[in-house]
């Protein structure tokens, strides 16, 4: 029974991945490639003394931004197409439950995202090696952090794609959460200040705990702060936090989806 459910989830995931490829979502990669390869030549001229650092930082920032773009397009375009064109009935009339569909959809989006990030990272690594950069384990941990951050983003974006009634609202909320998600740790430090008003403190603390703390996964800004490798205990803790957040989002998505009238 469990094997059957898993194979159904994987079938939905495979379908989502095929849809993303059919919609030419992976074309984002070509824009990334053009931007990063072209950018690497410009950076050499513009940032003397910090060429290697600027190249890798721009690469990570581009991977995160293009990854975010990929997941937004893949979630919202495919979900709204399914709902608007009623394609979802074709899937749901087969023996595929809504829970299976939700999990499959998330797995498919995750596969698309991981495929995209891996290809972008390989290109960035190639450029870095061509430029004589000495890479260590931290540069790989940074990309794990970026991937985890985007998977969490995919989980709450999937929720918004189900609960929102139109495309712009869903995209706006996802982008807003992605932005505030990077800010929550700073908002928490504001809440800890003595000068902050009590009501504001409560609000800031609520935001800190409810919204995703994406800065916990942001290792790209911390790679120059550490001496040696990142603390592995920290990496595993953030991994556990990220997984718990994804699970929570998927359960809420499933509840919302099961109540949604189509």
């Amino acid at each position, binding site marked *: 029974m469990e094997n059957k459910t898993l194979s159904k989830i994987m079938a939905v995931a495979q379908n989502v991945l095929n849809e993303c490829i059919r919609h030419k979502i992976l074309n984002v990669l070509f824009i990334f490639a053009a931007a990063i390869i072209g950018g690497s030549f410009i950076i050499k001229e*513009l940032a*003397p003394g910090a060429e290697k650092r600027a190249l890798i930082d721009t690469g990570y920032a581009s991977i995160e931004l293009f990854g975010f773009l990929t997941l937004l397009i893949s979630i919202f375009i495919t979900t709204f197409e399914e709902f608007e064109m009623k394609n979802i009935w074709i899937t749901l009339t087969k023996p595929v439950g809504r829970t299976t569909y939700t999990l499959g959809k998330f797995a498919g989006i995750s596969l698309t995202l991981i495929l995209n990030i891996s290809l972008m990272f390989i290109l960035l690594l190639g450029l870095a090696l061509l430029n004589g950069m000495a890479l260590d384990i931290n540069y790989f941990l940074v990309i794990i952090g970026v991937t985890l951050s985007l998977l969490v983003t995919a989980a709450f974006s999937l929720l918004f794609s189900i609960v929102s009634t139109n495309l712009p609202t869903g995209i706006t909320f996802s982008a807003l959460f992605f932005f505030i998600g990077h800010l929550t740790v700073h908002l928490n430090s504001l809440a800890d200040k003595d000068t902050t008003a009590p009501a504001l403190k409560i609000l800031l603390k609520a935001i800190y705990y409810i919204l995703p703390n994406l800065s916990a996964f942001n290792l790209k800004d911390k790679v120059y702060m550490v001496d040696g490798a990142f603390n592995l205990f920290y990496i595993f803790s953030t991994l556990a936090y990220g997984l718990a957040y994804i699970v929570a989002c998927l359960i809420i998505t499933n509840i919302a989806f099961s109540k949604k009238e189509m």
Partner: protein
Amino acid sequence: MDRKQYIYLTAAALLVFAGLTFLGEQPYFKQLHTPYPFRETASVAPYAYVSGVSGFRAVTADFLWMDIVQYIGDPEIMKIRYPELGRKFSNLILMDPNFTYPYLAISGMFMFELKEREKALELIKEGMKNNPKYWIFNMYLAAYTYSMKWDATKDTRDFRKIVLNIENAMRDESHPPMLERILGSLYLKLAELEPANKQVWETRAIKHWLRMYEKPTEKLNKEYAEKKLKEFGIIN
């Protein structure tokens, strides 16, 4: 609705809450997540402010560095002695205090080009405070200190110590190219200060320029070395 789902949701939410509380209490987390300087960075360009707070501090610092390089390269601004350089540098360092190269390059500019020696020392000390394990700063600090001492004493032993510390600082590959041009000039100055060792210092200068000419770290250094080697009749 399936009650199980709500139980799982509660468990996941508790795990998120506990995880975040636990993470926030870890010294390693506190060390990595220093509070963002909201007020101090208010004067940076809006794009830099937004990028900085939204998780792109390192790359924003890189772009601020590119902005500084354009600023330094402007001949009109050079004439008025870079009035905005200190402010631009502060913004960069607020964005990423661990970006070591600008400390070296900008302090070198203050020290040797703008002759604002106290400011140069201040920048290097700030770099040391923010990056205590980056040993190169010690070399620069020593060179700057002896340079100031030399101004007061005119003792050639102090001048030799400037040269020694710059030579040591240059062993690190990430040194600013400007430092190489300065070192050549310092050898010549030593040749002038110590007539008995004139030939020794001039030979060192020539060897140094030959290295700069054969393996230039930037185009300007090759041109500079070529000019000097021609002056000394080493090349035509």
